[in-house]
C-alpha cells in the first residue's frame, strides 16, 4: 500500500531529474545517509522490541547488551496479560477516544455548517468568541476545569475524561473553510426537491467532505488517545485510567521488570502505529497542510 503513496508528490519533476543525472556518487551518499538515519531513529523502538522478547533474567541490568534474544520468550507479554490492567486501559482509551472523536465531529460539523451557510443574529460575535478560543491554552485551564468536572460528579468517568476534549475551535475553522469552498449549486437543487437543512448537510455536503472529515477524525482520535495531563487529573482510579496514564503512573512504577516494561511499551505503541500505517497518507497530508496554506 505504502509504495503507491509516493506517486502524487512529484509526478512531473522526478523523472526529468532522474534522466538528467545518472545515479551519482552524491545520490549514493544521500541514500546511504538517509537510510542510516532512519534506522538510528528506529533503534529505541527496536531495542524495546528486542528486550520485550527476552526473559526477565536475560533483560535485566548487568547482563551484556545484545540485540537478538538468546532465549526467545513471551514471558513479558504473558505476565502483562495476567495482570490484566493493560487491557483495561486499552479499552478505556478506545472508549474515550471514540467518544471524543464522534462528538467532536458531530459538534464541529454542525457548527461549521451553521457558520458557513446561515446568517443569524449575533453570528459575528459568536464567531469572534470562538476565534478567541484558538489562543486559549487548555493546559492553563486545568485547575478550574477540574473543579467544574468535579462539581458535575464526572471524575473517574468516561464522560469526565471525554467531554472537555470535544470543543476544539480549530476543527470548526477547518471544516467551515472547507464547507465555504463547496459549491452551493448541489444544495440548491436538493432544496428545490424539498430537502431540509439537516438532510442537505447529511446527503449533499458530507459525502463531498470525506477527506477533510477523515483528517479531522484521525487527528482528533490521535490527540485524544495521547492526551496525558487531563486523564492524569480526572482518572485517579486505576480502573478508569487511559493507556498513557496507566502506563506512566502504574507500569512506569514497576521498576526492574524490564522485559515486562518493554512489552507494555510495545503494546502501548502498537494501536497508534497501526492507525498511522493505515492512514499514513491522510496524516502526512494533514500535517503538510498546516504549513502550506
Amino acid at each position, binding site marked *: 500500500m505504502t509504495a503507491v503513496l*509516493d506517486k502524487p*508528490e512529484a509526478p*512531473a*519533476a522526478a523523472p526529468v*531529474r532522474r534522466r*538528467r543525472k545518472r545515479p551519482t556518487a552524491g545520490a549514493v551518499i*544521500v541514500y546511504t*545517509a*538517509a*537510510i542510516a538515519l*532512519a534506522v538510528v531513529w*528506529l533503534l*529505541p*523502538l527496536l*531495542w524495546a522490541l528486542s528486550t520485550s522478547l527476552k526473559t526477565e533474567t536475560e533483560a535485566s541490568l548487568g547482563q551484556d*547488551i545484545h540485540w537478538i534474544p538468546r532465549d526467545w520468550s513471551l514471558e513479558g507479554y504473558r505476565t502483562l496479560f495476567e495482570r490484566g490492567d493493560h487491557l483495561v486501559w486499552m479499552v478505556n482509551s478506545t472508549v474515550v477516544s471514540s467518544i471524543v472523536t464522534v462528538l467532536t465531529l458531530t459538534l464541529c460539523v*454542525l457548527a461549521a455548517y451553521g457558520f458557513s451557510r*446561515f*446568517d*443569524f*443574529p449575533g*453570528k459575528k460575535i459568536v464567531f469572534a468568541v470562538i*476565534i478567541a*478560543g484558538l*489562543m486559549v*491554552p487548555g*493546559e*492553563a485551564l*486545568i*485547575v*478550574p*476545569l*477540574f*473543579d*467544574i468536572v468535579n462539581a458535575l460528579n464526572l471524575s473517574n468517568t468516561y464522560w469526565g475524561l471525554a*467531554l472537555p476534549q470535544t*470543543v476544539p*475551535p480549530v476543527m470548526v*475553522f477547518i471544516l*467551515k*473553510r472547507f464547507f465555504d469552498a463547496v459549491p452551493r449549486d448541489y444544495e440548491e437543487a436538493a432544496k428545490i426537491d424539498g430537502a431540509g*437543512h439537516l438532510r442537505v448537510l447529511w446527503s449533499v455536503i458530507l459525502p463531498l467532505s470525506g477527506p477533510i472529515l477523515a483528517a479531522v477524525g484521525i487527528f482528533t482520535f490521535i490527540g485524544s488517545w*495521547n492526551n*496525558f*495531563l487531563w486523564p492524569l487529573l480526572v482518572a485517579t482510579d486505576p480502573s478508569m485510567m487511559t493507556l*498513557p496514564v496507566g502506563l*506512566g503512573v502504574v*507500569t*512506569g512504577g514497576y521498576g526492574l521488570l524490564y522485559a515486562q516494561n*518493554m512489552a507494555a511499551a510495545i503494546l*502501548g*505503541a502498537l494501536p*497508534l*502505529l497501526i*492507525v*498511522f500505517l493505515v492512514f499514513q497518507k491522510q496524516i502526512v497530508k494533514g*500535517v*503538510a497542510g*498546516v504549513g*502550506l496554506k
Partner: protein
Amino acid sequence: MTVHTEAPAAAPAAAERPPRVPAPRRRSWTGLWFVLPFFAAYALFLIWPTFLGLYYSFTDKSLTGRTPSWIGLDNWAEALGDERAWNALGNTAVFTLYSTPPLVVLSIVFALMVNRARRAGWFLRLAIFAPYVIPVSVVTIIWTWIYQPDGGILNHYLEVLGVQSPDAPTIWLQDEHRAMWAVVITTVWWTIGFNFLLYLAALQTIPQDVYEASAIDGANWWRQLWSITLPLLKRTTALVIVLQLIASLRIFDQMYLMTSGGPNRATEVAIHYIYIAGFEGYRIGYASALSYVLFVLIMIVSIVQFRLFSRKEA
C-alpha cells in the same frame, strides 16, 4: 492547536462571497441551532473555566472544599515573589532554548535528505514520523531505560566508542545539569517527525526548474541550498519556531514522567508547578493565579503567530 494559520484565509474568502453568489441566505435563527450544541459545550468547558480561573485567582479556594474567601491580589503578589515559580518558568525557557535549535536544524537536514532520496521516501517518512504518534509514557518508559547509568544502552555504546570509561558511567536523568538535556534529546526524537513533515511538504512545493535554471548558471548544490532552498523555507521556519515556542510553554508530560521535576527541581516546568500547587498542595486559588501568568505568556506568543501568518496570507 497546530492549524491556527489556516484560519485567517477563511475570513476574507467568506466576506467576498455574497456579492458573487446571489445570497440565498436570509437572516434567520436557523443557523444558530446548528452552532448551539458546539457553543454550549464550548461555553461550559472553555469560556466558563477561563473566567472561573480568573475569579479563583483572587480567592483562597482550596481543593479540600472549605468555603473560599476573597483575598484580593494576595495570590498574584505571592506568585511574583515565588522563587519556585520563577525557577519553573526559567526551566521552561531553558527547555525552549535547548530544544528549538535541534528541532529546527535537524528537521531541515532530515527533510533535505528525504527529499533527495525519494525512492526510499515512504520508509524514511515512516521511521522519522512514527515516534510522533506514540503515547508519551511509552516514550518515557523506553528512554528512561536507555538512560540507565549502569547497564543502559546509551552508556553501553558510549563505552564501546571509548567516550566514557565503564568505571564512571554518565548519570543522565539523576544529574542536575544533564537531566534537562536528556529530556530534550528524548523530546527531539519523539516530536521531530512533525516539523520534518512540514519542511518536506514545503520543499516539495519548490518547482524543480528553479534549480535547473540556477544549475545552468553554474550554481552548485551548496550555493543552491543557501540562495534558493533555505530562503524559500523561511516561512516554514517561522511557523515551526512559533509552534515550538507554544509547545514548549505547555511542556509537562516528559518531565513529570522521566524526572518528576528533579533532581533538585532542575526540570520542574511551569505546568508542573501549577499541578503541584493545585493538586498536591490543594491550593486552587494560588494555582489559578499561576495558570493565568502562563496563560498570558502563551496568549502573547499566539497573537504574534496570528499576526505573523495572517499578514503573509492577506
